[in-house]
């Protein structure tokens, strides 16, 4: 069963079930909206070329739901959206399946595009969800951090030197004070690109 919060035209949820993009589109559908944008984050089969068997997400659920709702309300107001919905899957997520869905609706498309991206970046920086990549074999899993340069923490406590990246790649905007990614993030348009 999904745990969810709803306020005005904002909906957020955490679930151990498969994510359903159609129902998330329907949640933001409105006669006032001329555009709906859907972002579906899916789990990749490798980290820096190393095969990943599956991913596992855990969360501080009541705290994460509050953070998700705060992000949605802020993005809704900033971009004049009609509605916004965000759902994150927890537990084991097999490769290639959706781990997060965000839908936004607005009178015109420009606001929906921008708001969808901003909502995702805010989510990756702040929402209290943690991901472990399972490589299979004897290596164990590695916890990831979404911030720039954060080292993953291997279960056997060995240090790892590869840069952290989410299943959708590193965060692509500057960090903000107080964000829960706890540090600066990658600037996509910066000349100082991280080593990949």
């Amino acid at each position, binding site marked *: 069963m999904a745990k969810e919060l709803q306020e005005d035209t904002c909906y957020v949820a955490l679930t151990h079930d498969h994510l359903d993009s159609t129902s998330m589109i329907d949640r933001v559908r409105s006669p006032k909206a001329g555009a709906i944008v859907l972002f579906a984050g899916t789990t990749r089969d490798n980290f820096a070329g190393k095969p990943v068997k599956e991913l596992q997400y855990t969360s*501080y*659920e009541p705290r994460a739901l509050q953070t998700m709702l705060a992000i949605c309300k802020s993005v809704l107001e900033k971009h004049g959206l009609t509605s916004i919905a965000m759902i994150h899957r927890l537990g084991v997520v097999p490769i290639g399946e959706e781990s997060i869905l965000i839908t936004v609706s607005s009178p015109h498309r420009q606001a929906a595009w921008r708001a969808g991206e901003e909502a995702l970046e805010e989510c990756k920086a702040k929402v209290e969800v*943690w*991901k472990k990549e399972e490589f299979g074999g004897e290596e164990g899993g590695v916890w990831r951090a979404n911030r720039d340069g954060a080292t993953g923490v291997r279960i056997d406590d060995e240090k790892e030197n590869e840069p952290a990246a989410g299943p959708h790649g590193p965060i692509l905007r500057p960090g903000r004070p107080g964000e829960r990614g706890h540090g600066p993030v990658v600037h996509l348009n910066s000349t100082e690109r991280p080593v990949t």
Partner: protein
Amino acid sequence: MSTSAKAPPGHFKILYFGPAENHTSITSENLPAPLSVAKLFSTLEKKYGGIKTNLLESCLVTVNLEYVDIPEDENDEGMVIQEGDEVAIIPPVSSG
């Protein structure tokens, strides 16, 4: 999720998420209350040697779901964790 059961009298509950579990090998435990948040990290360091530099210094802390400031100096005043409170160690997140 282990967020339901309350701590016994004279204790608060502390939750360890994601990478924090690697250091503690448990997801939650009860610790004696009251405890100044300024002394929280050193209290955990005594239980789990190395956790302060390897983990806690990159973590945030919530008390009853709200983020709290951790004073640099553990002798500083700051908020005090009370009996029955729920505290959580929040490592850098990796949602998405």
